[in-house]
């Protein structure tokens, strides 16, 4: 019988898709593993989209609720991350529609102004290995970058976030937003150009 530890190495981690199939077949621990893997990335994506920490947490739970409810219908036809981010994006679109319907703020309000509950910049653009002499300027830089990201058009911002923050491939992003891969790449290019313009005064 094969011993997975015979080389003294831990077994390869199971893929997301394998975990989801296990969960579908009744392995509750597999779902815990999936939540642990994707919780942070999804939360950051949601937080940047809805700009409200408690609302992002609510939506994150809704993403996982939908996964639980749909588990019996799950089939390994695409990457699990594609499915997860499609759910998250759809929730953000719904949220955006509701927000437009409810909006009562003044036209003078900045378009995506940060409130007290807004995302902590450190959670979305933080780097752990910043040299000490640059740390003093880091919060200011992060704030500027985050604001520039917020000012991107919706279709460019979601592509930028999924690519840069969540590390998804252009193909995956295309599947999630329902656009050809080349269109996604164009949006990413426009996003980067706009960010460069907005941050031109920074010597980045």
């Amino acid at each position, binding site marked *: 019988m094969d011993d997975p530890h015979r080389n003294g190495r831990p077994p390869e981690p199971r893929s997301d898709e394998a975990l989801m199939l296990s969960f579908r077949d009744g392995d*509750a621990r597999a*779902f*815990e*593993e*999936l*939540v*642990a893997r994707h919780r942070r990335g999804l939360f950051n994506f949601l937080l940047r989209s809805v700009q409200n920490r*408690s609302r992002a*947490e*609510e939506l*994150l*739970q*809704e993403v*996982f*609720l939908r996964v*639980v*409810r749909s588990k019996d219908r799950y089939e390994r036809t695409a990457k699990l991350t594609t499915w997860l981010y499609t759910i998250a994006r759809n929730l953000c679109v719904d949220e955006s529609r*509701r927000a437009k319907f409810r909006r009562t703020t003044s036209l003078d309000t900045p378009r995506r102004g940060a409130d007290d509950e807004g995302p902590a910049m450190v959670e979305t653009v933080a780097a752990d290995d910043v040299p000490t002499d640059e740390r003093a300027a880091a919060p200011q830089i992060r704030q500027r970058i985050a604001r520039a990201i917020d000012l991107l058009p919706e279709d460019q911002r979601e592509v930028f976030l999924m690519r840069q923050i969540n590390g998804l491939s252009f193909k995956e992003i295309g599947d999630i937003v329902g656009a050809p891969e080349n269109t996604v790449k164009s949006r990413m290019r426009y996003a980067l150009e706009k960010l460069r313009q907005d941050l031109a005064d920074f010597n980045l």
Partner: protein
Amino acid sequence: MPELPEVESVRRGLQAADLRAPVIEVWRSAYKLRVGKSWAEENLACLKDNVPKDIRRRGKYIVWEFAGPGGETNGLVIHLGMSGRCGVTTAAQPKVTHTHFALRMADEREVRLVDPRRFGGLRAGPLHELLASEPLGTLGPEPLDRGFGGAVLAERLGSSRRPIRDALLDQEAVAGLGNIYAVEALFAAGIFPMVEAQRLHASAWERLAGTIVTVLQRGIDNGGTTLKDFRNVEGEVGRNQDDLRVYGRADEPCPRCGAKLVGFVSGGRSGAYCPRCQPRPRTRLVR
């Protein structure tokens, strides 16, 4: 039983019907509805020739204001009980089985109460008397009103030895909250549902007050929770049952951490909690 969001959904439906024509007939079936001292005298006949005004909600009750023919202000209190449904139809439509009340307006529309289980209640009379007497007069603060917060909850429940989930169901402490939304609010606040209410620290009360508002608002946004009977004025089911995080989901995974949810029964009412997100407290005070 319909809780605050379900009753609010019905109230909004009635309000949207824009009922302004005077009441020309009050019809009541021969069957008794809700029992108890507060509901013994329905006094519905006083609504004849009244003009409908604002429709409000207090806790789990609809409070409909009427202008009486002599200039007096009357009211109608509607309790939906377990299975009560309010609807607006034309007077020409035959009454369906289990219709127990109908207000016919001069524009030939009718507001009807259909209640198969007959736990619903009706009571009419001078509005100020209705507001001052039971059941409305003893209700606690409205959780969606300005001023509701942790201090209000702590003042009313902070010395209770009852499990916090059970204490939250006390309508004199907070109006409109029932089992489903109490269980959901405790999950959102990360509070173990069986902990004695008196062990909650001010910070936990504050957090809980916030999550009560959140789950109630979500329930309203979703048009209420339909587990079995609830329908809005249009006869549609609510959508909030698909959005419940823990209630009715014992043994399923927690949507926050993936751990298996645990079911419990207290005071004859069931609920569920996440043993990881809502751990049994080890310290005297729950922060």
